[in-house]
């Protein structure tokens, strides 16, 4: 089922989306006005929020890497996983650049072994392609809600806008993964965030 769903044209011909990462980098890292705005306590909060987001991106990149190296993902599912991972790498690069621009210190990723042993990822329970997709789906939904949840907390409205754009990417990932597994999409409106 997953393989069939992922073979749909809408999921596998998205080369244009790769440019989103570059666009996000430009939006974040290229916004010179951000640096001057954040020499304040509110700016310190913004850096802390961005570092939490960066930690989530590190985790997502690791999870897709684990999935890709598991031997459980078949083409074209593997291609989509690699695409989504590349977008998370774009998010990571943009967040690192912005944190540094704001005078903060970006959090580092854990080692591959630490992610593999993490109780949060539960890698030892992954036995099939669907298990990989379920892990990715869970992380993507968590990221959607995290990004939406921090929007009101940003002191800088430009960063709030960026969080919304990041949430949009994660929502796209979550939706694609959900449909790939033949699972139901959210029935209620306003199902993300709260």
């Amino acid at each position, binding site marked *: 089922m997953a393989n069939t769903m992922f073979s749909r044209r809408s999921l596998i011909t998205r080369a244009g989306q790769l440019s989103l990462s570059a666009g996000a980098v430009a939006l974040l890292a290229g916004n010179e006005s951000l640096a001057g705005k954040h020499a304040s306590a509110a700016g310190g*909060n913004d850096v*802390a*929020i961005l570092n*939490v987001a960066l*930690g*989530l991106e590190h*985790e997502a990149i690791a999870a897709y890497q684990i999935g890709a190296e598991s031997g459980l993902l078949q083409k074209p599912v593997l291609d989509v996983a690699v695409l989504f991972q590349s977008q998370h790498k774009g998010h990571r690069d943009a967040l690192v650049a912005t944190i540094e621009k704001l005078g903060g210190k970006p959090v580092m990723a854990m080692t591959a072994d630490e992610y593999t042993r*993490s*109780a*949060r990822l539960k890698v030892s329970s992954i036995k099939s392609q669907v298990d990989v997709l379920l892990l990715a789906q*869970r*992380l993507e*939904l*968590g*990221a959607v*809600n*995290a990004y*939406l*949840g*921090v929007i*009101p*907390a940003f002191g800088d409205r430009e960063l709030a806008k960026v969080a919304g754009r990041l949430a949009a990417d994660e929502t796209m990932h979550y939706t694609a993964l959900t449909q790939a597994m033949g699972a139901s999409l959210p029935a209620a409106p306003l199902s993300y*965030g*709260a």
Partner: protein
Amino acid sequence: MALRWFAGVALVCAGTFPGVAHASGDAARGGELYSARCGACHSIEENGAGPRHLGLFGRRAGSQPVYDYSPALRASGIVWTRQTLDQWLANPNELVPGNKMFVQLANEPGDRADLIEYLSVATAYPF
């Protein structure tokens, strides 16, 4: 008679000890909400961006030794109960200004009741 005595003790305990489940929320739905809304930063067993939740009820806020809490939360004097969790989830920065949890993802009282019901079960130390 014995059964009635046991039921009476259970009721007293439920009202006395934090962490004992009350039938005020839907734990199953709370589990889904926890994964979707809290899971990016939290898990029951392991610290992430946010602290782990094992043994949450009855613990003083900011007191787990291996997690880097904000000074504001460590100094809050809060003990986690159903009531304080409800206040925290409704607006963490109103309850403890200056803490590190920037996310508000449980604005609805029903969502908070379900989350707290789930946490009351899931965070209990295994015996």
